[in-house]
């Protein structure tokens, strides 16, 4: 009996509170996982663009963080798909997007664009690390007593080397060119991947808040912002962890050292790299933040000025229901404060990291305000819906579309990165690597 009643809870009912006149089938159908989805793809795209700044435009100063950003971007890739799988009512049928794509839908391209992008990132990593892979094969082959992990790594390296063992100067030169080409090609694809995530929302003509051609551009800009910010924050955290571990010889914190043997970088060198990279990256963060903010504010001014039929409902949502979320959390804490922190002279690493954390929070709130805010009012413009994030799950649905699902998505890239780091050490200080 209890089961039967639980079954009758319609998807969306558990976290939606309706007020005034809302149509019977209206719920917040797109909840936290759809907030996470553009957020995670944004991080992927942003991290990749950061790495490409070095590879394509030869921004030498970003050299160290570029390799890290590339590997981290690859770790983020599968996670960008995770929110969608957690959101789908029929996750096993997700493959249908590749099987029978209906290209008049913005979502249909996901499979193809996503895979194209994944191939580009994977190929770029392959070219960047090819020399390392080949050397690792030789090194592990020659080693007499391989540890368990090493005997696991050897066949992996053998497979991913694709049999290309040539390390002559010409071969390495062509690697270098390939990296440059792929990094260049990757930028438009990354922007497309994310821009079309914006298009998914911007093209919904039934939704007054979403429908604007600015949406894809806003999404790209904020994607780059959040991607760069995440790189700064995670780079800082990883570097701190490495410093701490290097001092105490705690190798289990260093997956690459664990896998490749003791090649840990001296603490002093780590510190100078970290400071230099974080500060440089912050400058780019500032540039993209300005662009993102300009577009968002333009969009809001335009809506208020033109004030079409939907404006009455939108105004209620923007200035009353979601005032805290939009003006305090998103613009205040997420944009204005980090702006100040980054602009005040004498930027320290710590201040840049705090600013970046705030930026990450701001972009998350922006996604939240777009996705949830877009469903905060009824299609009739005569009623409102409030979303309550399920904190304690009482069934699989409230876990997937609740705090539990959200945290799984947030932590997954770090877990993947940890293991990926064993294969492709992101913090290697080898000048020969591109």
């Amino acid at each position, binding site marked *: 009996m209890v089961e039967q*009643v639980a*079954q*009758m*809870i*319609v*998807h*969306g*009912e558990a976290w939606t509170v*309706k*007020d*005034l*006149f*809302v*149509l*019977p*089938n*209206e*719920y917040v*159908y*797109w909840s936290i996982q759809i907030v996470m989805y553009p957020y995670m793809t944004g991080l992927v795209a942003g991290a990749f663009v950061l790495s490409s700044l070095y590879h394509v435009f030869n921004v030498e100063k970003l050299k160290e963080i570029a390799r890290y950003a590339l590997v981290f971007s690859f770790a983020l890739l599968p996670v960008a798909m995770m929110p969608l799988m957690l*959101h*789908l*009512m*029929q996750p096993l*049928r*997700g493959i*249908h*997007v*590749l*099987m*029978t*794509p*209906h*290209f*008049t*839908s*913005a*979502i*249909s391209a996901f499979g*193809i664009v996503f*895979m*194209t992008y994944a*191939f*580009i990132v994977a190929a770029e990593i392959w070219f960047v690390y090819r020399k390392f892979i080949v050397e690792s094969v030789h090194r592990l082959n020659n080693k007499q007593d391989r540890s368990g992990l090493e005997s696991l790594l050897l066949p992996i390296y053998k497979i991913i080397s694709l049999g290309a063992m040539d390390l002559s100067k010409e071969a390495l030169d*062509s690697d270098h*060119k*390939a990296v440059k*080409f*792929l990094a260049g*090609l990757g930028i438009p694809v990354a922007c497309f991947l994310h821009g079309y995530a914006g298009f998914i929302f911007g093209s*919904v*003509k*039934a*939704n007054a808040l979403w429908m604007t051609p600015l949406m894809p551009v806003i999404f790209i800009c904020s994607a780059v912002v959040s991607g760069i910010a995440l790189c700064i924050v995670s780079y800082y955290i990883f570097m701190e962890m490495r410093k701490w571990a290097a001092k105490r010889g705690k190798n289990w914190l260093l997956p690459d050292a664990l896998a490749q043997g003791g090649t840990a970088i001296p603490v002093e060198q780590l510190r100078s790299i970290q400071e230099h990279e974080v500060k440089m990256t912050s400058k780019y963060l500032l540039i993209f933040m300005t662009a993102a903010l300009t577009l968002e504010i333009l969009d809001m001014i335009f809506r208020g000025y033109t004030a079409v039929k939907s404006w009455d409902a939108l105004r209620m949502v923007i200035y009353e229901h979601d005032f805290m979320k939009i003006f305090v959390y998103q613009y205040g804490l997420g944009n204005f404060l980090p702006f100040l922190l980054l602009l005040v002279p004498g930027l320290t690493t710590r201040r840049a990291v705090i600013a970046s954390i705030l930026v990450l929070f701001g972009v998350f709130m922006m996604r939240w305000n777009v996705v949830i805010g877009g469903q905060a009012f*009824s*299609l*009739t413009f*005569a*009623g409102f819906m*409030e979303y309550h994030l399920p904190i304690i799950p009482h069934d699989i649905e409230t876990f997937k579309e609740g705090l539990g699902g959200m945290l799984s998505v947030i932590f997954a890239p770090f877990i993947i990165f940890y293991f990926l780091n064993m294969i492709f050490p992101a913090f290697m200080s080898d000048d020969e690597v591109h």
Partner: protein
Amino acid sequence: MKRRDFLKNTAVFVAGASVSVSALDFITPKELFAANPQLKWGFLVDTHKCVGCGFCVKACKTENDIPYEANVTRTWVERYVIKKDGDVVMDCPKGARDGYTTKLLDQNHSGMLLVPEDEIAQAFFVPKLCNHCTTPACVQVCPVGATYQTADGVVLVDRSWCIGCGYCIMGCPYGVRFFHPVEHVADKCTFCYHRISKGGDTACAQACPFDARQIGNLKDPNDPVAQTVLSQRVGVLRDEYGTKPNVYYIGLNKEVR
């Protein structure tokens, strides 16, 4: 070098695009009408005749196996109360599954509201259902071809192919779609395709004691629905979305959302 990589990436793109090369043949509306000139389903709602009994909602839920207790429905009836000062109050408790039996208006979180009798200028009911649009926004946004329009103009969902992304629910300007609580796929009114294809009436139209709901063939000049649509002042809902709905209303006014 560059050329090679260009070729490589072209190959990736071509491989991706060829997944659905067969899908790229577009048909113009003219060809479309020529293909099936004699049948296009349409619906007529007379808002004067509707008394808000909700028998249509009950019949629809039973006929189409939409769980009676679930707070979703393929069709529903809205109540509009327009006050003398111009304010409009609306409600639709449980989609009017049990009819309208009280003067209190259900304002959801804001509680029940009683509009004093002497303040009411006009009050009426508006039944709603899928508009089976000629250019359905929901179909356009389906990423996998799980929802579609039939040649006779009915919009259906393939329950074995729907991935449950909810994009069609978001894309529909009328809020007629929802996730089926048992099937876990998108669901919506089918115009009782199983009934009308055999010459029958929709369950809601059959259950209506007052003929407030009628289904008919818009292409047949002798059909009562087609005749009314042609000869009387009828309206459609939210035509600003350009979806060209096929549910026509008698007695629609601007307060109806």
